[in-house]
């Protein structure tokens, strides 16, 4: 069946000719006055919500604290081996590579658009993935990450797998990136124009209740989620 036949059937059921033009639609509920706007109030709520979902939240007082914190998290987790990270302004100039290399980890940034699947294999081999975020959501303890930078053509140093395949996900974010509800994110993404090929909302580690309703962590996605707020 082709598009024309498929839509003809639908139009027939709806008694529409197809020449009606664009329908008028005003999206959704007003959200301007929902939730706090103060950055500290938002940060506290985010911290509380993500902690409830078994995520770990750390506060860095300056950018300089980030790299040592990452090393500390990995040591605490008993991790060894290689670490993969986004190649993105959000994580590039924080001294992460130097600190991790010094601590004995092999660090690699995202492979840019090479043929084959080197990036997927790199992420699969890594014990941890380090990313930034585009937004964080206070109401639900959620990280929002685009496979590229939303609204920007040709910022390809991210991809889909860094926050997905390694058992440990470490996200670095700034206080100002926190908004209150998912609705704020949808509104902003819409305003930014063309979406990256993937935007993912992640709220804590992977979970399942498929074995006798018993909570199990890390069946597919990361088993641990650590968030450093600058």
């Amino acid at each position: 069946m082709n598009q024309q036949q498929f839509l003809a059937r639908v139009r027939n059921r709806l008694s529409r000719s197809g020449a009606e033009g664009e329908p008028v639609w005003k999206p959704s509920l007003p959200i301007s006055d929902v939730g706090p706007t103060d950055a500290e109030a938002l940060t506290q709520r985010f911290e509380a919500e993500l902690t409830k979902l078994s995520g770990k939240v750390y506060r860095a007082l300056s950018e300089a604290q980030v790299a040592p914190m990452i090393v500390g998290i990995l040591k605490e987790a008993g991790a060894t081996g290689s670490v993969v990270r986004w190649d993105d302004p959000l994580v590039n100039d924080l001294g992460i590579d130097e600190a991790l290399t010094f601590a004995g980890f092999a660090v690699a940034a995202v492979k840019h658009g090479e043929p084959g699947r080197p990036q997927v294999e790199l992420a699969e081999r890594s014990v941890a993935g380090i990313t930034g975020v585009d937004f964080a959501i206070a109401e639900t303890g959620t990280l929002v990450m685009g496979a590229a930078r939303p609204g920007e053509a040709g910022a390809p140093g991210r991809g889909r797998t860094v926050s997905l395949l390694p058992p440990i996900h470490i996200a670095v974010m700034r206080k100002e990136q926190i908004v209150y509800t998912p609705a704020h994110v949808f509104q902003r993404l819409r305003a930014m124009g063309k979406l990256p090929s993937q935007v993912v909302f992640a709220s804590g580690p992977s979970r399942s209740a498929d074995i006798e309703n018993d909570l199990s962590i890390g069946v597919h996605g990361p088993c641990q989620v650590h968030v450093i707020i600058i």
Partner: protein
Amino acid sequence: MPDFKTRIDKALGDQQLRGAVRFTADSLRTKRNAAIADLNAQAAESLSIGTFDDLRKQARAIKEHTLKHLDHYLAQAAESIRANGGTVHWAADAADVVRIAEEIVERRNAKKFIKAKSMASEEVFLNHALEAKGLEVVESDLGEYIIQLAHETPAHIVIPAIHKTRRQIADMFGEVAGRELTTDTPTLTKFARETLRKKFMAADIGVSGANFLVAETGTLCMVTNEGNGRLSTSVPPVHLAIVGMEKLVPTLEDLAVLYGLLPRSATGQKISTYFNMITGCRRPGEPDGPEELHVIFLDNGRSNILGSQYEETLMCIRCGACLNFCPVYRNIGGHAYGAIYPGPIGSVISPLLNEFEQWTDLPQASSLCGACHEACPLGIHLHEHLISLREEMVAKGKADPGFTKVMKLWMRAWRRPWLYRLLSKIGYLGMRSYATKRADGTEVATSLPGPFKAWTDTRNFPPVVRRPFHERWADLQKEGAK
């Protein structure tokens, strides 16, 4: 397939299944109620975008608008998907989906499929068709994987393997592993992670459904907790999405409302662990993601519902809340229904989506209490549709002829006041010898003869009283006037 009554008897005799279904439904129901109470409390302090009722009202408005203009939004979605490098296919039925999948298999020389949980794919029996071609198809949702290893069907649409014990799961996993596994959750989870991760890495095609599809941007949205939805759509070189044509929403902003309702209604979560928004395939320069994205819009009977009195059933977001609240589902579980979609929503849409004749007895499986309607985040009037379907069934001569005859006689008698009064008297006298007095002074018949025995075998019958209500009404009116 054995008939519905036999299937119900089998389910009622399976104590393990009943216990598991009851436990799961209770726990999901409790969590859902708590999540909605929390949402309402937050709304009172302007800390959420609205109360449950606000969201429900807006969700209905979104879906109503989209369905009324579905041809426009389908065309818009198709255009947006193509603009982002995706390919759009149109499937009238299951055979179309299978044919489209086979074309992709042939062109890509694909051998291995990995699947995220998708009700649409189950509806078209995709696994069965692909396996018949000698292809490997692996379900990656933990519950679906367990069900697949057991060669069974889901007992619940959200948590498919509720009826399997950890002992049974450990045995099945152990067989795959070729060694004995302990029954603790971390061991079983670790085994599933390692085994399925290899399947993801080796898969040629990842299959998913979609919970929502944004027409304006062509964005597929998937609500998951495990992450297998992300893996299926990020790791294999081809992503094939099967999308019921009713999944559309106009804009990104509309997602806030529907996504606000779905996890709360399904599992009592404020938000699911993952919400995956896919707009096209891997772009030039992006380091990963599938090279090809195929979106199949599925009709499979949906257009018959469109424009009919049942149109609002196309608003369903497949949260499963109506299952958890249904007194019938809670007792018989998902298998007894026999159809892909169980519970109240399944009893309504199964006869509408597929062959009407095959599922005529499903609408009988309801007490018409309306709990499903109250729980439904879209407020679908499921109990009313069940009555309409029963009427259609009778009109099409699909009801039990003996039962229809009795009901017709009953209707005739009740239309004639003198006959009604006479029958009340006969009923009273006839039941005297069967009525026994209870401690509180009320009477009850626990065992009746003849055709009434079938009733009293499983429940008591209240005996006809000496003075029925219509006789007492005159006295009551006098009393009221005093």
